[in-house]
């Protein structure tokens, strides 16, 4: 602390005071840091420190810094104001139900200083330990341990046989058989519907135009005949050779030849 003391009580002793104070302010990390330094100067246990003395020292210090026109961070000034308030509260007769009490505020400040001092001390002790890479050293050139990964391949007989099956299938020539499906082509339907329309004078249901019996009983062929005949009917209507009527939705489709 002696170095800090020197700078604090520079009082122009060596003519470099102004600069020293400036540097010193840079060196303090905030008001709490400065307060701890001042408290240490009381050379008593932090638990027995006088908050009032501390306040006076801090305020005097800040006042001096201001007189030297040094720029002070706002939080130094806030702390100064707060300490001045704390001092007045401690000195004035107690007002009723003041929360928090000035004693509590003083105690809180003291506890905070103790904690900061404890951590500063702890940090110093930590740094003074025998440190790896500074005081003690690990092996300079370790060979290193190697973990060699070895694959254990997994495969079972079923997978093997499936694979062989796949290979054999792939090797077989691929033959595509497209079976001709029995349908009624549109041309045939057109011819058939046109012919039947010509021989029937009135309305006739579309279904009555369909061929029956034999192969036509097969459902898929029957469906094809119905679809083709319907398209044929639409085509004839478009050509003006037939008329189509349907009385109800999904009702029977009626067909009639149109007088040309």
């Amino acid at each position, binding site marked *: 602390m002696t170095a800090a003391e020197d700078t604090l009580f520079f009082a122009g002793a060596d003519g470099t005071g102004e600069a020293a104070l400036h540097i010193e302010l840079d060196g303090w990390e905030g008001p709490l840091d400065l307060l701890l330094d001042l408290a240490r100067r009381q050379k008593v246990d932090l638990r027995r420190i006088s908050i009032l003395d501390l306040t006076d020292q801090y305020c005097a210090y800040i006042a001096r810094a201001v007189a030297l026109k040094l720029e002070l961070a706002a939080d130094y000034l806030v702390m100064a104001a707060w300490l001045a308030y704390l001092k007045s509260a401690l000195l004035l007769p107690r007002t009723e139900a003041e929360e928090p009490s000035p004693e509590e505020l003083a105690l809180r400040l003291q506890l905070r200083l103790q904690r900061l001092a404890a951590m500063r001390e702890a940090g110093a002790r930590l740094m003074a330990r025998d440190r790896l890479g500074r005081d003690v*050293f*690990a*092996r*300079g*050139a370790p*060979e290193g*341990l*190697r*973990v*060699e*990964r*070895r*694959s*254990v*391949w*997994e*495969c*079972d*007989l079923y*997978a*093997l*046989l*499936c*694979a*062989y*099956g*796949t*290979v*054999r*299938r*792939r*090797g077989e020539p691929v033959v595509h058989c497209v079976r001709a499906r029995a349908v009624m082509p549109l041309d045939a339907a057109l011819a058939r519907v046109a012919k039947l329309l010509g021989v029937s004078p009135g309305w006739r249901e579309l279904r009555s135009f369909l061929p029956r019996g034999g192969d036509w009983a097969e*459902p*898929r062929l*029957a*469906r094809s005949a*119905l679809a083709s005949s319907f398209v044929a009917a639409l085509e004839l209507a478009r050509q003006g050779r037939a008329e189509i009527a349907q009385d109800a939705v999904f009702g029977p489709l009626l067909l009639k030849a149109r007088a040309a």
Partner: protein
Amino acid sequence: MSDDLARAVEAMLFAAEAPMREAEISAHLGGAPVAEALRALVADYASRGIHLVERGGRWHFETSPDLAHVLRRDREEPRHLSRAATECLAIVAYHEPVSRAEIEAIRGVQTGRGTLDVLLEAGWLRIAGRREVPGRPVIYATTPAFLSHFGLASRRDLPGIEELRAAGLLEPVDAVLEAAMARGSDESAGDRLAETGQSA
């Protein structure tokens, strides 16, 4: 051991990033003669897991040669054989001995060198010589390890083509799939067909 010089030499060689000459060690210790300390250390470590050795005039610690195996650890990692490798293995098993060209002809796909390497490494294939044709290609065959891994007494235990066919393994994928689907959704498929019939 209480000899401070030997302790210093010991620590220095331990922390050194490269082997050190006797003169270097001595220079670090203010010129103290270190030959005696080195000799003492060699003796100290003779029966330990670490030895102090001199190589080409430079000293360093190294692990005892008989412990090389503990510095290396094998870890087994189970891995599934790739489809390509499984197919190659199957082809060799059914057709051995075969060359790579023959495997490719049967698979209908090019086969990477790595695929066969995996099977050689797994110990399931071996190189069974060379085929006496132009180019003398290497031919492959299966190993006893292959038989025992797959639980086969001999290659004759591999199911024949007819058996594979019976097991459905040779049917085209579509047919097998269709059959499976039909079997799987019997009643619902039936319903659907009946419906279609009506609506026609």
